[in-house]
């Protein structure tokens, strides 16, 4: 368990560095911005206590806010993602009893499950984030387009992250 906590802290640091130093500086076709740091929240164990899930997501969002001049927007979107996570997990797996310590990974849940899980939660996160960013509805369709495109790109990168971090030997435990 102690090892697991260290691994999640490692994810946190690496994802913040990747997001702030690389992805915030890349512009795909003008206005598509992938926010891959949500992978940190998606990777937390299924049976994590609710308060820890919410607080660590809030911390992640605030850290990204600090480095990209967006006051509270990422915090708000990430907390919403964390709040919806248990519900989404129950909904797409059709059950709520998991072995203690189960992590949402391709080797444990299957590729289709992970893809659907990522897409739904990233869509929710990006929707709140992009509407908070413009803070008005006058550019509604442009914003919808940005949400759609960015959700697609983020989902692909996050899914690649899932495949990269997967540990097949863990299945035997």
């Amino acid at each position, binding site marked *: 368990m102690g090892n697991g906590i260290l691994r999640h802290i490692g994810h946190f640091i690496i994802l913040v560095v990747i997001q702030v130093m690389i992805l915030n500086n890349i512009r795909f076709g003008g206005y598509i911005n992938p926010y891959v740091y949500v992978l940190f929240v998606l990777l937390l164990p299924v049976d994590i206590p609710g308060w820890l899930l919410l607080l660590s997501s*809030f911390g992640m969002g605030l850290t990204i806010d*600090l480095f990209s001049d967006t006051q509270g927007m990422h915090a708000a979107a990430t907390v919403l993602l964390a709040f919806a996570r248990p519900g989404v997990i129950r909904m797409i797996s059709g059950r709520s009893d998991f072995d203690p310590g189960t992590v949402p990974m391709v080797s444990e849940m299957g590729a289709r499950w992970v893809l659907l899980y990522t897409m739904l939660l990233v869509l929710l996160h990006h929707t709140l984030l992009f509407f908070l960013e413009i803070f008005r509805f006058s550019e509604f369709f442009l914003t919808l387009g940005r949400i759609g495109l960015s959700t697609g790109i983020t989902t692909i990168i996050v899914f690649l992250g899932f495949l990269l971090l997967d540990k097949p030997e863990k299945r035997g435990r």
Partner: protein
Amino acid sequence: MRNLFRFIIRYYFFFLFLLLETVAILFVVQHQHYQRARFASSANFVAGNFHRMSSSITDYFSLRRVNRQLSEENARLLEFTTESFLKTDRQVFTYRDTLYSRRFRYINAEVISNSVSRRDNYMTLNKGSKHGIKPDMGVITFNGVVGIVANVSENFSSVISFLHKDMQISARLQKNDHIGTLLWEGNDYRKATLTYIPTHVELIPGDTLVTSGFSVIFPPGIFIGTISEVEIRLGDNYFTAEVDLATDFNSLKFVQVVQDLMNEELQQLEVQTQAGGR
């Protein structure tokens, strides 16, 4: 009372969510109130130093381009030195001529963090209050406008880019001096929109747009861009034109911060007039 506590503990996940979400939204709303993001956080110590560190690495990749730009700019400035003018009249003594008193000074600064992909974009400069930069100063490059300083710390300042939904610049058509408002609609960082030019004015693609100098932020006559498309939107009685911006926001490296030495005098006068004083 006991039941209330039990209720809250039972649904603590929801209440904690509500609390954190409220805190985050409050942050957002509070900063929306300040028209100019008074707390743009990259001016603070940790983030400022972090951006400087990463900029010191990425600087090397643009050295070639920056060198070329600097030498072009040098050549242009050389044309204005006294050595490049032939003195024909030996009778006039021009040293510290009181006919010309200096109004604008320019502080050179380097962009250490920048974005163009969001709806509201900000950038950070490597100079701050120590170097004489104050909030509300204009930021330009040698061809084009860049933004307005929002917030300064000792060593850094954060700038609201022109690519921001609250930014409007008063622009003037160079050929006939008509004034319009320039703003960014959020699509392409190379294009802006010019509005409020009356329809009787002759406006065609290729016209040159410069700053009006009506605000104390930008000096008059700074090149902004050229008109590329003109239309009258349904129901409007003024032109809406698309403008190709001269500034390439995606490759900004060195910028000049405008210091208006007569800012205080001008503002004092305007406040006095608007307050009804004679």
